[in-house]
């Protein structure tokens, strides 16, 4: 009897140890760190304080960066949905050799490091980059693209698109291919059939894709770091700077915890909405 109780626990323990060691412990340490006092002259002190949280939440500099993070992540999610959903639909309507080829084209970028891709974008968008060279050739003045929010969003969309396309594509795969034809025979135009019949079916995929894209965008580090420059910070790069440049680890920890909590709240609320919808649709 005791053996049968112990076996599942033993089997689960390697995973549990890994999870505790790599996720729980660092998170708890960060949480503790965020409540420790800090002095520029002497470093981290051995006393408790809420000063870091008060400081972050009352300073418009930090709030501005949080707001930018939220705004850019939401914008990236929206653009990914607008591009990814039609892309997935076209993909699902392709014939057999092309479908695999284009699926690979979509997933391909995931095989290249985000840092490499960010540098690629900075070369394209730079003041002497390909985009500005092309604009110059057709007689338009140079446009400042690099180190702007536009550059961050463009690169984020590029990186996040596969995370939107794949869930939507999966939802489309589950759809009875005749369902669209059924709508046509009942008098629906191609557009009405898409809007009334196909869209509601793939909305679940779209919503879960949005959740992934939003979460990853809000915590993105390499792209805002390389394409936003020193001035345009997002949450992850702010935390990095507090740790590595200001050396104010407790403040960095406090920001990290706040970002984590904000992200969790948004995503859990969103997930609840998605699940309520799923229950209504799938029973």
């Amino acid at each position, binding site marked *: 009897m005791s053996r049968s109780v112990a076996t599942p626990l033993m089997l689960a323990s390697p995973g549990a140890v890994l999870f505790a060691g790599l996720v729980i412990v660092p998170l708890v340490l960060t949480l503790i760190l965020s409540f420790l006092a800090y002095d520029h002259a002497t470093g981290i002190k051995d006393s408790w304080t809420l000063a870091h949280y008060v400081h972050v939440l009352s300073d418009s500099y930090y709030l501005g960066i949080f707001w930018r993070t939220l705004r850019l992540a939401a914008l990236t999610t929206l653009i990914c949905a607008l591009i990814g959903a039609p892309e997935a639909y076209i993909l699902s309507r392709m014939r057999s050799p092309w479908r695999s080829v284009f699926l690979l084209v979509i997933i391909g970028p995931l095989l290249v490091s985000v840092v490499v891709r960010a540098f690629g974008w900075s070369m394209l968008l730079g003041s002497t980059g390909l985009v500005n060279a092309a604009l110059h050739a057709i007689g338009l003045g140079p446009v400042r693209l690099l180190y702007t929010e536009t550059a961050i969003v463009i690169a984020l969309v590029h990186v996040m698109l596969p995370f939107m396309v794949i869930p939507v594509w999966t939802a489309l795969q589950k759809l009875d291919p005749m369902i669209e034809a*059924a709508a046509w025979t*009942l*008098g629906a135009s191609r557009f009405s059939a898409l809007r009334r019949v196909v869209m509601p079916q793939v909305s679940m995929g779209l919503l879960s894709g949005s959740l992934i894209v939003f979460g990853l965008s809000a915590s993105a580090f390499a792209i805002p770091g390389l394409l936003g420059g020193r001035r345009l910070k997002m949450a992850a790069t702010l935390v990095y700077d507090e740790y590595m440049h200001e050396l104010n680890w407790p403040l960095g920890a406090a920001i990290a915890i706040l970002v984590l909590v904000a992200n969790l709240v948004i995503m859990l609320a969103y997930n609840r909405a998605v699940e309520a919808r799923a229950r209504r649709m799938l029973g």
Partner: protein
Amino acid sequence: MGFLTLEGVSKVYGGLAAVRDVDLAVARGEFVSLLGPSGCGKTTTLQMIAGLVEPTGGRIGLDGRDITREKPNRRGLGVVFQSYALFPHMTVAENVAFGLEMRKVPRAERDRRVAEMLALVHLANLAERYPRQLSGGQRQRVAIARALVIAPPVLLLDEPLSNLDAKLREEMQFELRRIQRSVGTTTIMVTHDQAEALSISDRVVVMEAGRMTQIDAPYRLYEQPATAFISTFVGKMNRLAGVWRDGGVAVAGTVLASAPADVAAGAAVTASIRPEKLHLRPMGEGRLAGRVASRFFLGGHWLLTVGTEAGDILVSVPNTGEEPAREGEPVGLDWAPASLRVEADAGAAA
């Protein structure tokens, strides 16, 4: 001139002809089945009528109007798909109302017509259910109601009963016929089930390898199959190869009495007779002697294989409450000469 006409309609997929030169004229109110094995082009033909597949050649006419190139949403035909293709996120009533909504029928009239149609298919009490909450037979009736509520000139059914179990399928055959009769809609049904085609159609169209090989009323199709394939695909058939001699068919030394045939003496022929046209007689009586090789009880009748000089012959014996001869027992076989059909083999001198 039919109500729905197909003239020389064909469909070629990458050099392979799925449908070749199909001509068909369906009268208003008629129930026509397209019957054939899988891959014979019957579903492609139906999809061309529905507008979901564009024909490579030929012309499709509806009530005198050429609809060959018309988009499916402009044709206004009712289609019931094999998978039913119900909209899973809509209730039964919303599914049925969809076609009317697309036609911008006012709300009040829409509700009335949906209710009428649901009553016709006996689903009035399930209007607020979702498709996933229905049984196979109920889903099928929703699909029929959804296709019929738009009052289509033609109803197209693609293997509508193939996803149902045997008992339900039989019930739905009658149900389908009842609904079609009461609405009077011209109907074309695709099926691979010969019993289904025979029982509910006014006419049956048999397709083989993309061609129509016979168009006839069910009874004539059964009694006078045009090709060897049809004779074995529709019902069971004994086919015996022989030679025409003395006004009968000589098979392995025995001359079988047959219907008169316009064939030269000595020509190679095939004799065919349905198992139920053969009668079991006691040993020594009848036209042909044999021995029972196997015996199957099928409820309404027995199916016997009788080994004879002319080869193995299937005999269907109606279940009259008395057991027929057992395996190994010698028997005689008898038949009315008129029921043994004779045809000259292709290539043989007539």
